[in-house]
């Protein structure tokens, strides 16, 4: 018995001292943890971006941690509250990050060397309302559009549709040929709003003009372009896959890439890299949201999407700031844009893109007026949350359980419930 007790004591000592031993071994190296929702990018961060950073700072070890995207906000909030979050925090645009900054979880980055490479539009999503503090380094925007299967288009002798009429004509041709015209489902809700409504919408509400109109209270979701976008979206329903109500995001991705059963995938540029991995042989390209009449100005959603900030409670703030400083350089912008085709740098550095599909997306910046998603700035601050309402009611429009007018009224009601400028419309 005594021997056993002695053994236990020794074991306990070993266990107690083990961490100290490994800590001393790692002395001189600082470990930084990046919190992100981009779990699709884990490999690229580990193999390309972090090694490039380490070429300059070999003593800073960086780890990339990404839970499933839908859980990111919840998990991050819980970790920040519990004091267990990583040193570098990937920032969602607008209020979610503003909320973190207001609660004191993020450092102000006004004095970060290199922050001057980001213009007002790039900063707009990560700045306090009075413009006094920038709290995340803008990384990238994503552009909405439609990807299509070039082989199917050639087989059916289809031209890339430029107008709304040509678009629906093409959908009919594809359907008649036995392919799925649009690979999208409504089960996960967000695609209906993000890849549907916000994709084609700017064309109808004239981009920034409509978006700022909503914020200033001069136009509502149940009128003009905003209602029209719901009406056009409703016409997609017959061209979605069978059982689209239970088709998930990844189902739709597989229909388009791996199975090549679908001809068009309503999307954002962030899919380019993922699709390249899912099916490297897929012959795909992209076209921009069709305009109503030939020759009309085109509008695209060029949405500020992702940035990075420093956890104010990090024990290694100095090193974390060094990482952010490196993120403002030309080198990072080029590496990031090439490693993650479809995420377009927001810095003012000159870049050329290797990926042809990414190059196609970014070329629209020169041809069309750009805007961001209508619900992201200010309008998702109250309850009900405008973005969530758009998810819910866009999906119901496609499911046929609400008419476009009913859905538009519901979204407007929700906004007018708390947003002063919309209350008396």
């Amino acid at each position, binding site marked *: 018995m005594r021997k056993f007790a002695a053994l236990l004591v020794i074991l306990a000592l070993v266990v107690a001292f083990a961490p100290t031993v490994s800590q001393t071994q790692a002395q001189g190296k600082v470990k930084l943890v990046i919190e992100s929702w981009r779990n699709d990018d884990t490999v690229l961060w580990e193999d390309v971006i972090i090694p490039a950073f380490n070429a300059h700072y070999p003593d800073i070890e960086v780890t990339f941690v990404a839970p499933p995207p839908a859980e990111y906000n919840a998990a991050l909030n819980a970790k920040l509250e519990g004091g267990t979050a990583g040193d570098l925090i990937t920032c969602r645009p607008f209020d979610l990050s503003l909320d973190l900054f207001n609660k004191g979880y993020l450092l102000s980055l006004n004095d970060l060397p290199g922050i001057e490479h980001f213009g007002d539009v790039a900063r707009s999503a990560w700045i306090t309302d009075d413009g006094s503090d920038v709290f995340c380094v803008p990384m990238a925007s994503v552009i909405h559009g439609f990807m299509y299967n070039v082989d199917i288009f050639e087989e059916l002798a289809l031209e890339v549709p430029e107008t709304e009429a040509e678009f629906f004509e093409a959908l009919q041709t594809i359907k008649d040929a036995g392919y799925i015209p649009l690979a999208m489902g*409504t089960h996960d809700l*967000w695609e209906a709003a993000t890849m549907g409504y916000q994709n084609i919408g700017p064309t109808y509400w004239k981009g920034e003009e409509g978006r700022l109109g909503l914020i200033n209270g001069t136009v509502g979701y149940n009128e003009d372009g905003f209602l029209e976008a719901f009406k056009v979206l409703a016409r997609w329903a017959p061209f979605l896959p069978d059982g689209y109500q*239970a088709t998930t995001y990844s189902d739709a991705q597989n229909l388009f890439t791996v199975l090549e059963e679908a001809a068009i995938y309503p999307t954002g540029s962030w899919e380019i890299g993922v699709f390249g991995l899912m099916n490297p042989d897929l012959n795909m390209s992209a076209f921009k949201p069709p305009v109503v009449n030939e020759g009309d100005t085109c509008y695209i959603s060029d949405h500020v999407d992702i940035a990075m900030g420093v956890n104010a409670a990090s024990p290694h703030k100095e090193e974390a700031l060094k990482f952010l400083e490196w993120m403002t350089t030309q080198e990072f912008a080029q590496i990031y844009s090439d490693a993650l085709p479809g995420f377009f740098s927001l810095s003012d550095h000159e870049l050329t893109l290797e990926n042809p599909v990414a190059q196609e997306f970014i070329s629209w910046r020169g041809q069309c007026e750009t805007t961001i998603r209508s619900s992201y700035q200010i309008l998702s601050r109250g309850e009900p949350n405008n973005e969530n309402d758009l998810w819910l009611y866009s999906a119901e429009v496609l499911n046929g359980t609400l008419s476009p007018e009913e859905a538009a009224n519901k979204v407007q009601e929700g906004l007018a419930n708390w947003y002063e400028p919309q209350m008396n419309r």
Partner: protein
Amino acid sequence: MNPARHVHNKQRFPFHILVFLAPAVIIYTLFMTYPLVDSLRLSLYTSDQYGNETFIGLDNYRKLMTDPLWEPRLKGAILNNIEFFAIHMFVQNPIGLLLAALLSSPFIRGRAIYRTLIFTPTVLSVVLIGFIWSIILSPLWGISGDFLTSIGLEQYAKKPWLGLESTALPTLSLVSVWQWVGIPMMLFLAALIAIPDELIEAARVDGATAWGVFWRIKFPLILPTVGIVGVLTFVGNFNAFDLIYTTQKVNAGPNFSTDILGTFFYRTFFGQQLQPGNPTMGATIAGVMFLIILAGVLLYMFGWQRRVAQVEL
């Protein structure tokens, strides 16, 4: 009895009782009672955008029950939860009882194999179950379609079971029944096996049929287990969350038709996409869940457990 000795006994404090109670009391207080009380406390506060908490009494509960934004969600979640519970109570538990009755019969061969197979899903992760079933039920490539076609039900083959407001909740309830039916089966089986053979033999000698033996001898003797299974189902279902979250995600779609109290709580407490979490309202929903479960358990204790005759066998 010696009176002096009696006094002596009274003076000595029974320390051994403390020692025996300590582990359970400490662990329960630390990990169950304290978080529960603190969560109830949190439901009486509200917090501003900087995270400062202010006491507002029962205002959160009033808001949850009357506000036009919150009330329909709460009502929807409670009604869905009742449906979810009802399907378990009236499908899972009778099937569990039937399986137990069959498996307790000495005339069925391979009972151990059936028992193991039926019990296996309960030890699998709910995430796994949710994932497997959403693939089985997928209208695009699920095998449920092929199966339905093979038995002549082509019209249902491509039905999006998890995507329609009318079918999503019953479908998920049945998936959950499929997973958990092993638990009531085992509890019923244990109770049935404990019934002494003499009672059954005596009934047989008196001319009772198998049907008569089950309903007049066995069933009354396992009534306490029926109660326990009922209350376990109730508590489990009103705390349920994982299956819905895994298959339908945090918005419990379509149009909140699969939203139960657990998903409603999660969405509110932790937030979603652009909606920041609201811990105080979340705690309020947790408070409502606690009250509902408390009411159910009290009803069971005073309405059932104390009335059912416990027979010593």
